[in-house]
């Protein structure tokens, strides 16, 4: 059995740019390595270099020592012979990595049959499915399975391959509370079984529970590395600190405050899609300056509730009462996927100009707001595709605030953002509620975040 994976001075570059420079790290038995960083930090490139799947046009130098060989020197054939036998992958968002037209059992059994040539592949597959609690799902197609079930199937596939080295790519992405804990427990079992685990994530909490060694990456460089516990408890680098502080569990709790008068009230709401009942007899009230979180598993109707409050969907029963005298445009929404909420060919400046002209808002007010949201004037020339998610979400907040809203529905508005941006946008929302007395309905799947940002929470059950 191999005792370690050693990466020495790994540099990855295009013809004119260095993407990862001088990266070194070791994964040992019982000593998992977690690469922490936001998208674009180079952590995925490191994993691709190990796997041998770097996109064409990228050059890797340095050494990756595993099984007594340098993985960077292997040819195509030798590299492929490692896949599924020596190196396994737990893909990110496994629902996209499963064949949509093949049953779950078949996708697992083929690892036994075609990769390892084991007899009784179907029996082994059935046992493997049972182990991850999918005993009854062998005949299901991926579209019939939830995200959590797909993740467990991917784990069963990784387990069946039984490779000495396992790469886990963002294993907690898109999963909420309970499912995340389940994934962590299973990964820990793989560590206990003596497999080398390399995890790529932006999730500080995940790194903490996995233990071992952590390495923080920024702009293609490892800015800090060391035992995970020590590194997270006593970060030396400012970026590591920012990353840790950005984790919702580290956010300062909201100071209790006296909410203002009620801005919007809904009574006896009921909504169903076909046979599926989302909620019945639900009462909601949000007051000025108050942040109310709505939590619950995906599909429980969180977004639908918010849409009913801003008026883009109608309830089957019940009614919504807005505060008398509020402008019709005073009830606004922030979207989960920022680029989808902007017109792709319009520059930000143009979009804001149209809005300001429509509602007779003067230029100074716009400039003031942009400055307050830390949006540099240069960004006005950009189109949505050229901005980061964080910048776009701040523009979205800006255009909403231009209308002096009394109520804002933030629909998973920070879930697609990198941790640092997420914290910033959440902070801006909090600031608006405190300074402008904005009432906010904050929909999220993250219970920890809900606890930190909101005055109180509504939990919807499946």
């Amino acid at each position, binding site marked *: 059995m191999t005792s370690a994976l050693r990466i020495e001075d790994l540099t990855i570059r295009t013809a004119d740019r260095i993407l990862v420079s001088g990266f070194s790290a070791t994964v040992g038995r019982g000593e998992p390595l977690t690469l922490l960083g936001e998208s674009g930090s180079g952590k995925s490139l490191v994993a691709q270099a190990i796997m041998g799947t770097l996109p064409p046009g990228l050059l890797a130098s340095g050494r990756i020592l595993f099984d007594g060989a340098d993985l960077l020197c292997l040819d195509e054939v030798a590299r492929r012979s490692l896949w599924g036998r020596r190196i396994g992958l737990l893909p990110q968002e496994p629902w996209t990595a499963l064949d949509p037209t093949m049953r779950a059992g078949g996708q697992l059994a083929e690892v036994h049959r075609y990769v390892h040539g084991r007899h009784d592949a179907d029996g082994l597959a059935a046992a493997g499915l049972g182990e991850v609690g999918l005993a009854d799902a062998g005949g299901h*197609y991926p579209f019939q399975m939830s995200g959590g079930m797909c993740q467990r199937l991917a784990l069963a596939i990784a387990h069946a391959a039984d490779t000495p080295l396992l790469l886990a790519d963002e294993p907690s992405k898109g999963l909420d509370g309970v499912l995340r804990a389940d994934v962590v427990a299973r990964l820990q079992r793989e560590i206990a079984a003596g497999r080398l685990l390399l995890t790529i994530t932006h999730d500080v909490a995940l790194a903490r529970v996995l233990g071992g060694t952590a390495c923080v990456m920024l702009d293609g460089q490892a800015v800090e590395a060391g035992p995970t516990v020590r590194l997270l408890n006593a970060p030396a680098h400012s970026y590591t600190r920012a990353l840790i502080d950005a984790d919702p569990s580290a956010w300062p709790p909201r100071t209790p405050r006296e909410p203002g008068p009620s801005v919007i009230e809904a009574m006896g709401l009921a909504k169903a899609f076909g046979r599926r009942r989302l909620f019945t007899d639900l009462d909601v009230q949000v007051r000025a300056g108050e942040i109310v979180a709505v939590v619950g598993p995906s599909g429980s109707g969180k977004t639908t509730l918010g849409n009913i409050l801003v008026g883009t969907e109608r309830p089957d029963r019940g009614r919504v009462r807005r505060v008398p005298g509020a402008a019709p445009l005073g009830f606004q929404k922030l979207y989960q996927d920022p680029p989808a909420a902007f017109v792709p060919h319009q520059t930000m400046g143009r979009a804001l100009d149209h809005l300001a002209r429509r509602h007779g808002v003067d230029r100074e007010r716009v400039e003031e707001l942009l400055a307050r949201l830390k949006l540099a004037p240069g960004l006005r020339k950009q189109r949505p595709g050229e901005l980061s998610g964080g910048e776009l979400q701040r523009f979205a907040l800006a255009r909403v605030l231009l209308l002096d809203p009394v109520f804002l529905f933030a629909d998973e508005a920070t879930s697609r953002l990198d941790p640092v941006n997420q914290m910033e946008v959440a902070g801006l929302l909090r600031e608006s509620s405190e300074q402008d007395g904005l009432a906010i309905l904050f929909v999220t799947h993250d219970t920890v975040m809900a606890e930190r940002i909101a005055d109180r929470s509504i939990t919807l059950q499946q």
Partner: protein
Amino acid sequence: MTRLLLGRLVQAALVALVVGGLCFALVRVLPGDAAFRIAADRYGPDALTAQAAEAVRQELGLDRPWPELLLRWFGELAQGHLGNSLVSGEPVSEELASQLGPSLWLAASALVLSLLIGLPLGLVSGLRAGSGLDRLALIGAVALRALPPFVLGLVLMLVFSIRLEWLPPAGYGTWREMALPSLTLALGLAAVSSRVARDAVAAVGATTYYRFARLKGLPERAVLVRHGLRNAAIPVITYLGLQAVYLIEGVVVVESLFAYPGIGHALVHAVIARDVPMVQGAALVMGLMFVLLNLGVDLLCRLLDPRLGAGR
């Protein structure tokens, strides 16, 4: 499933409605006294008498108000009464029955031939997307698509019948007569299906699940056979539904060109002779063939793609 069958049933009804309605209108607007003209068509101008015209008037009931006539027209259609050809005087259903076989053979052989040419070519081009072969296949397909089927048929005829004298330019009977019409259609169809297959294979090759199948450690063959072919087949089969349009239209054109004794040929002749019952019967059968083809494609798709089977 019921929904699917119902949808195609509605389409079949629409075919009957459109064809029947237009043919009824056609009878009404033909210039001159329809009864006289039909009688002249049938018995020749010399034998035309007032009695003969009156007989036709009675036979077709041309003296009633039109809404009643329309209802009766559709009533006849619903019972499957297609009437007699105005040219030959024979029952339309009998003429169609003898023409259906040749048309079906032509359509089927063209479809099979097109898949035999298009699918392997598409698979290889898709697996080697961007290669010289892929580009060559693209140029060939674009060129073939810009060629009207009748020009393609003429070129094949000039080469294989007139220059090389390998195959007869017209007729029906053995595979030799069918070879050129069938090849004409098949080349046109393959020009499209090869590119659809190529795009489908290339698209599947770029999916996350296809790459993951490789990373699982499966041998390339297993990756292709287990995860590639079925997923790539879905768009190709779906596309066959659209190709049905080309196939039916092509049958009409190619049969006329090669004087092939099928329904398409009969339809064109009937249109020129304004043999309304025959136009109606031939168009109806062609239309229903189109509906059946679409139904077959629907069923195949459902067989291949489990997502379609699960009623939402």
